[in-house]
């Protein structure tokens, strides 16, 4: 077994808000191996995006703060790095793609200058060399007529093309890790398929790891090797992708899988939605945060918080009743 590329250990990220302290990420630990596609899934407010921003060192402080834990990337603890050294890693060895490409690109700079910028900064390439490389990158991400595109501004491109530019930018310095935070959520399905295939291709060519953050269980099923399911700031289940769908061991995972309609199901196949609402992070229930919505909850779940434990090789679950859940499924 190769050493993991990214090791997140007991990460705690908090935000101070008017309503009190929000534990957006609460004791999260997981590893991403070299060359693998790892997906973090969950609904809004579960902490998946904050986890990604914590890795990138992009938590706005104040109001946010990483209060404890460690993030080890390729043997280096990112949290102890001075900001200067973190800047050298960000955008160079770790690339990131966000949901909204229009607001991530600078509207007043040409595509060429935006693409060449990371190359000039991180790789010390001269202007002409960087521009040539930028053109290669545009070709790589499948945008036709790269010579014209180089001179254009972001508003002249379609949403899918902008996201391709974001990928080109993130891949410019051949990062070892690419983080895609809801990168295809704003796109139409036919474009979404193109962009995800492209991300899979470019990372597999360079051997980079891909961390996909999404709420879409279909995307996870298609691309991910391993998955972490988050709910209310905590990881609830970490599993091989195929195993997660075949044998979900956490009640929330079970509920989530039964909530999504399937394209290949018969018409009117019943859905079993999870009852209740996602809890307010400033006012979480005692014990396991999922207990008010959980059909398996016992008294213990209302008092104590379960921690993530290995239930079988390759699978970790945070639930006192996971054995009962596993039997029922």
């Amino acid at each position, binding site marked *: 077994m190769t050493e993991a590329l990214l090791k997140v250990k007991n990460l705690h990220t908090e935000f101070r808000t008017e309503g009190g302290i929000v534990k957006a990420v609460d004791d999260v630990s997981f590893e991403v191996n070299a060359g693998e596609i790892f997906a973090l899934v969950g*609904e*809004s407010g579960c902490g998946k995006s904050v986890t990604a921003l914590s890795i990138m060192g992009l938590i706005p402080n104040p109001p946010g703060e990483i209060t404890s834990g460690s993030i080890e990337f390729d043997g280096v603890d990112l949290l102890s790095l001075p900001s200067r050294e973190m800047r050298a890693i960000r955008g160079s060895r770790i690339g990131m793609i966000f949901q909204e490409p229009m607001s991530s690109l600078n509207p007043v700079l040409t595509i060429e200058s935006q693409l060449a910028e990371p190359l000039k900064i991180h790789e010390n390439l001269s202007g002409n060399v960087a521009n040539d490389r930028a053109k290669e990158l545009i070709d790589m991400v499948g945008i036709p007529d790269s010579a014209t595109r180089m001179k254009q501004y972001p508003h002249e491109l*379609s949403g*899918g*093309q902008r996201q391709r530019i974001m990928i080109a930018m993130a891949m410019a310095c051949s990062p070892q890790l690419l983080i895609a935070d809801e990168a295809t959520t704003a796109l*139409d*399905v*036919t*474009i*979404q*398929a*193109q962009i995800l*295939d492209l991300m899979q291709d470019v990372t597999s060519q360079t051997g980079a790891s891909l961390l996909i953050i999404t*709420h*879409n*269980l*279909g*995307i*996870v*099923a*298609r691309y991910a090797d391993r998955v972490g399911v988050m709910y209310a700031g905590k990881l609830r289940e970490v599993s091989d*992708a*195929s195993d997660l*769908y*075949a044998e979900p061991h956490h009640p929330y995972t079970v*509920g*989530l*899988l*039964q*909530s*999504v*309609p*399937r*394209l*290949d*199901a*018969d*018409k*009117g*196949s019943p*859905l*079993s*939605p*999870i*009852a209740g*609402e*996602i809890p307010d992070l400033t006012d979480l229930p005692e014990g396991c945060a999922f207990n008010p919505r959980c059909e398996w909850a016992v008294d213990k779940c209302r008092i104590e918080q379960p921690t993530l434990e290995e239930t079988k090789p390759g699978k970790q679950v945070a639930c006192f009743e996971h054995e009962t859940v596993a039997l029922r499924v």
Partner: protein
Amino acid sequence: MSTTAVSPEQQSIKPETGPILETRQLKIHFPVKRGLIIQRTVGVVKAVDGVDIQIKHGETLGLVGESGSGKTTLGRAILRLNDVADGSVRFEGQEVLELPGREMRRLRQKIGMVFQDPYGSLNPRMTAGNIVAEPMLVHKIFKDRSEITDRVMELFDTVGLNRSMATRYPHEFSGGQRQRIGIARALAPGPSLLICDEPVSALDVSIQAQIISLFDRLKEEQKLTYLFIAHDLSIVRHVSDSVAVMYLGKVMEQGNADDVYRNPQHPYTKALLSAVPIPDPKVERKRDRVVLKGDIPSPLNPPKGCVFNTRCPVAEDRCFVEVPLPQTFSDGRQIACHKVNP
């Protein structure tokens, strides 16, 4: 197309058999204007361009398509929310596009609408109870105010909201609860048709399922007919009896939902369905997929001939010249493609 041949009375004799809603050659073309004070028309966006759809009583028609396909515009045109429609929209035998204002108001009692954005579509200064009561006041459905209050409470029960929440304001509710208020408001005047425009796309997965289940239950209990507009093909699969697939203002394929989903015929439908990942790795990783090249063309400047020709994997010369007309197949399906023939 003007309508003189069939009188409304004739059609309303047997409302259960005919379609509750029918559009014929519906066209909604928006002029594109330029200039600050003296504007001139520089082009036209054919948001909906010659669409024929039918919805039978008690059934759900799923209208799917990607952005710019015209699905939302079509939904709004049925309530005449954009006044540039041409062609025919018939609701229970009545021609909607020619109705005078007073009768149009009466028609709006029978057609309810549920919007996508549960934040933007509720007045923040009104209580949930007042929001649901308002359509009944506008349409003067009840004489007595206490009757309205009773009906509001009944509607709160129907959509799964606690009666005590009636005095709260929209910001005190979650997204899912707000969508329930929106549904209660749409149901208030007792409609027979509900137009749902992306009613769950702003919601989280677990909440989406709750709202879809509510739609399922209402259809059973209240014998509602739905026009369900959505881009999420899996959800449309779950709710629809029939389905119409739109692309750049035109219907590419429509028919029985089971037929279309199991055996899509139009190259666009095939590609669209294969682009949607199935949440099951065992199935998903074995699927044959058609990944379309390129982007959706601008509706300002759609391709000549078949609008899908720029991305179609099987397009031939003819597709770049001639617009394919919808042809009806033996299973009742309608497909607009030169390469698919009955």
